[in-house]
């Protein structure tokens, strides 16, 4: 888990905080439970960011998941919970929903209840919501039209962790009065948070103040500079001199002793 600017060893019972980044090991399984009874399970090799983002006048819990398998269950009607992935955006779900996210393909199965997806749209089209009923299976591939089927594919079922085929067990009550502290490891490198620094703007924007202190480290800064076009919001942090207030033109012409150096051109 990445919390703040450091890596931590995740243990059962750790309280989740907004901004936590969860990375599940090759054979691991992680479950996050929310106070309203909703549970989100992550399969092996799954990476997710827990965030609290504004939604209208209120805030909503949002999980940004880049890859892997996840199961969302126990979401109550009207709950402000979203799952955002590079291919699928789950706007809301009641019952249980399972997703498998590959590099270029994402699939979603409504195990029970209903799921509402932000339907893919062409440029200029208004946003619409796609409602999926219990038993329906949604597949979308990069740059292809999404398909809804009445049954999940065998490949999808085969990719799921066995535990996802059963109801998610509630474990939070065991740790209600027994908080568990994660063990702090070392500071994160750029490579370890690269995915999140390159995430969609709504998720990567909070990364700037969070990892600003890490930019002081040469290796981290060099990586930020090398990938600046993925996260241009870092430019003022990396090159503050470019954003210094400009002096009045007359005064500047009079007072400026020399033209700008090479650093200004970067």
């Amino acid at each position, binding site marked *: 888990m990445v919390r703040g600017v450091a890596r931590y060893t995740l243990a059962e019972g750790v309280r989740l905080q907004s901004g936590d980044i969860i990375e599940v090991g090759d054979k691991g399984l992680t479950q996050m439970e929310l106070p309203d009874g909703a549970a989100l399970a992550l399969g092996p090799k799954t990476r997710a960011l827990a965030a609290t983002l504004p939604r209208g006048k209120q805030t909503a819990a949002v999980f940004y998941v880049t890859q892997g398998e996840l199961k969302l269950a126990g979401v109550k009607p009207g709950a402000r919970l979203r799952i955002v992935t590079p291919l699928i955006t789950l706007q809301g779900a009641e019952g*249980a929903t399972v997703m498998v996210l590959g590099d270029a393909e994402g699939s979603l*199965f409504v*195990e*029970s209840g209903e799921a509402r997806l932000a339907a893919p749209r062409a440029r200029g089209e208004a946003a619409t919501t796609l409602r999926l009923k219990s*038993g329906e299976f949604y597949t979308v591939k990069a740059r292809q039209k999404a398909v809804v089927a*009445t*049954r*999940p594919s065998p490949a999808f*079922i085969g990719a*799921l962790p066995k535990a996802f*085929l*059963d*109801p998610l067990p509630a474990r939070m009550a065991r740790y209600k009065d027994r908080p568990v502290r994660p063990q702090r490891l070392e500071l994160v490198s750029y490579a370890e948070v690269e995915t999140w620094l390159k995430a969609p703007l709504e998720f990567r924007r909070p990364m700037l103040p969070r990892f600003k202190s890490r930019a002081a480290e040469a290796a981290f800064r060099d990586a930020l500079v090398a990938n600046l076009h993925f996260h241009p919001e870092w430019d003022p942090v990396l090159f503050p001199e470019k954003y210094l207030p400009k002096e009045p033109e007359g005064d500047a012409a009079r007072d400026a002793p020399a033209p700008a150096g090479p650093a200004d051109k970067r």
Partner: protein
Amino acid sequence: MKLVIKFNLVFLLIFLIGLGAAGFASNELLQRNARDEIVLNARLVMESALATRAYTSTQVGPLLQTQMKYTFLPQSVPAYSATEVFNGLRKAFPDYSYKEATLNPTNPRNRANDWEADIVHQFRNATDKAEVVGERDTPGGKSFYIARPIQIKQESCLYCHSTVDAAPKTLVEKYGPANGFGWKVNEVIGAQIVSVPTDVPIARAHAAFRTFMVSLTAVFGFIFVALNLMLWFMVIRPVTQLSRFADLVSQGDNMDAPDFPVGSRDEIGVLTQSFNRMKKSLVQAMKMLEA
């Protein structure tokens, strides 16, 4: 006819009558026990199957409900679990069989064959019939069967078996849309049939009967020999010797000989004492006549 022959003839007659009566009674008892054992075994298998069905229906099935939304798991079906449990049992008892013979089954392995279909039709024609028992010849020998009807008593059973559209998609995906649909409430759709071999218990009864008869004959033989020896040493030989001694005395010989030895205090001994007394009286009478 000599005493020993008369005695042995009577003894043999009693022996034969006793052996016959004991043999008949024991054979009847052993055969009845064997039949009872066969029926008990069949009922035990049937009750085990029913218990497995109930366990699957009430405990296993609900646990697999979520998984059933992904893949149809026959392990959640009572008929499947009962058959599978019994298949495990068959590894140790290969001649036993259990089948939920169904006329229109979802799983093709449950399809009733000819003789099973006859039984199912018996239940369909007489819905109040609770059980059918019988015996049939099989390649492995005679087999006793006990059958009970499978009747749809709950509407919930039709969740999987009414129509293809109403059935779980995973079920249709696994078994196809052709079979196992169109069932109705109160319809007898099949029969649970347990078959157990009769040869083994019957053979065991025969073996027990043979052992019993041989043992009984051996005991009779031993008694026969023992009685004959006792008869010879305790009755025939002393009586013969006394008789020979009496013959000599009656012919006037052995008048001066000592008394015949009294070997025992039983009736033969008393007879010998009486004879010796009689001989003494005869000797005295003879002496008085001579004087």
